[in-house]
């Protein structure tokens, strides 16, 4: 039931959410088919949180990069005044 709920997020229009949902389902499937044990399952699931943290940090970095470019453009424009 929970797995079905997570699967609905795979169609979600957001790359990070989509990737988290896809990965969680993949780990769940491997555990259900006994390809990984319980402690491996728990560790891989907790890695999703670390991966999410990385994605959010990189998103912040991308925003700063864009803002940096805009400030550069603003300064260039000011030189033409």
């Amino acid at each position, binding site marked *: 039931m929970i797995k079905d709920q997570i699967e609905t997020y795979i169609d979600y229009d957001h790359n990070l959410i989509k*990737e988290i949902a896809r*990965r969680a389902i*993949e*780990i769940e499937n*491997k555990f259900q088919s006994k*390809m*990984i*044990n319980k402690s*491996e399952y728990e*560790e*891989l699931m*907790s*890695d999703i949180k*670390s*991966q999410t*943290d*990385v*994605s959010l*940090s*990189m998103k*912040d*970095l*991308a925003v*700063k*990069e864009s*803002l*940096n*470019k805009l*400030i*550069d453009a*603003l*300064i*260039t424009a*000011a*030189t033409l*005044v």
Partner: protein
Amino acid sequence: MYRLLSILAVASMLSGCASYLLAKYDTGEHVLINDIRMSAETGKEYCTDSEVMKALSVQIYRKSISFKNYASSLDHNDDVIKAAESLVDITTGLKSRYSSDSASAEYCKMKLSAIESTSAAMQLSIARKPR
């Protein structure tokens, strides 16, 4: 306001494109994250060999520590430092498991995939830092 912008403009012209909010592109940082990504990417073929994986897991862990320390030495690099700490968390799990007992091949493949995709995302952002 225009005076401030003029001063910034002169400073900018003198130094090329400036970096106001984040650390500039750093070749050393890029090389280190690329190395972690490559180790995870090429390591998957050894997932059935626990002896090789034991050595590789320590190697990847040490590389992630090296990357975190290097990133920490750069000013205005908070986002990369935070991401590097999360990457260390992921690689610590791999190293700990192989140092205490063996791991399943599926766990190994998924763990290395997680390290590969995480470091790839970081590399993409690091490569786009202002020159």
